[in-house]
């Protein structure tokens, strides 16, 4: 454990942990917005349970980020007291829910990446990273099962559902490039053996995406990236305007009543 800590700068390690923690925090918050608004009771419950899984995983990742950082902060402090520029989540997960099809497509694109990431992190040289990954992987296997299932059913469904799923795919796919773009933080973590290069996860993700889209009779949009750029955005703290609104709602209580607990 101390070996892994020495192998990479604490600040770099904490930064990297916040990327994973923030992804599941922001996506979990987005998914929780469906609570009470799902298109069917079963879907409402499924979305809420999935949000719970993601927020639970966030507590583990941000808890470790706070520990590694060593400045006395907690997972709660990271979640509720950072401003938008300090968040490290992918732009994809802060996209608005849109219709149910867009929520599902966002989930599927992320789940297929998430499972590849967690599977790789189980072999991390840091046992704390490896054990969180092994725990989360089991839950995410269910997430992927569900989102892939629904993408197939709605893609290969009615004319209306097919059109909505294709629209969702065309809208969201350009945000997926960021998942696999390596930067200096990723390289330092991979060299330390704690993580793997994001680019190494793309082949597995591509296969899942291609297989499911084919079964769903949806057309792969091709390698088209947002603003024509693959690698900049949320991971470095440059977010869309949506994140500020998410934080305004999520952080309101701690901002208005600092230190409040129950």
């Amino acid at each position, binding site marked *: 454990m101390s070996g892994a800590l020495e192998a990479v700068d604490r600040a770099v390690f904490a930064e990297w942990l916040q990327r994973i923690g923030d992804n599941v925090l922001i996506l979990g918050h987005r998914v929780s917005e469906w609570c009470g608004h799902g298109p069917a009771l079963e879907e409402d419950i*499924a979305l*809420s*349970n999935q949000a*719970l899984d993601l927020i639970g995983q966030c507590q583990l990742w941000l808890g470790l980020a706070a520990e590694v950082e060593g400045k006395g902060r907690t997972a709660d402090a990271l979640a509720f007291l950072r401003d938008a520029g300090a968040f490290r989540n992918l732009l994809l997960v802060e996209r608005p829910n849109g219709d149910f099809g867009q929520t599902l497509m966002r989930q599927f694109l992320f789940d297929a990446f998430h499972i590849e990431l967690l599977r790789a992190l189980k072999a991390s040289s840091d046992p704390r990273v490896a054990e969180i990954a092994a*725990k989360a*992987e089991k839950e995410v296997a*269910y997430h992927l*099962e569900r989102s892939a299932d629904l993408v197939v059913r709605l893609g290969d469904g009615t004319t209306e559902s097919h059109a909505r799923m294709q629209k969702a795919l065309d809208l969201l796919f350009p945000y997926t490039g960021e998942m696999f773009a390596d930067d200096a933080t990723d390289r330092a973590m991979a060299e330390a053996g704690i993580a793997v290069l994001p680019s190494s996860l793309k082949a597995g993700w591509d296969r899942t995406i291609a297989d*499911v889209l084919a079964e769903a009779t949806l057309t792969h949009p091709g390698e088209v990236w947002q603003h024509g750029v693959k690698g900049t955005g949320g991971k470095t703290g440059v977010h869309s305007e949506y994140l500020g609104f998410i934080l305004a709602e999520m952080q309101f209580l701690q901002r208005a009543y600092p230190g409040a607990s129950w």
Partner: protein
Amino acid sequence: MDAARPELTQVWDWLSQVPDPEIPVISLTDLGIVRDVEWQADTLVVTVTPTYSGCPATTVINLDIAAALHARGVEKVRLERRLSPPWTTDWLTAEGREKLRAYGIAPPIDGTAPDGRLAGRISRLAGTSNLVIACPRCGSTHTERLSQAGSTPCKASWRCKDCLEPFDYFKCI
């Protein structure tokens, strides 16, 4: 026996009487989440593994364990979390499974957790589940899955096509 330090077998017995807060028909030891119990000097250390990462019952479980042990005269109790190996429904006791069934929740079928690998079976994903779950009320296997999710993170929603009753399935993880 040292009155201040009850035997560990006694402690395990006490823990087997602490009900799960969400599914009170089974105990925490039936659920397989108590991983270790040991004395460290005058402190009883109970190591618990979470079920699902975000299960809201986790905090309540720790409070219930501490309260149950305090009530039996154990003064110093420390709860520790252990993530590895991650909890699996394989650890549900045989007795716990029968209690679930009698309560109306179909117990998990070991070895059926998804592994996140979709290749080769995507065409069979759509809308169906290849699990055969017996209705906990009438025993019929003429059942269907309504949703992968249920009233708690650990359960899925199913329906019996013979007795027409909906029921929960404690899904395998």
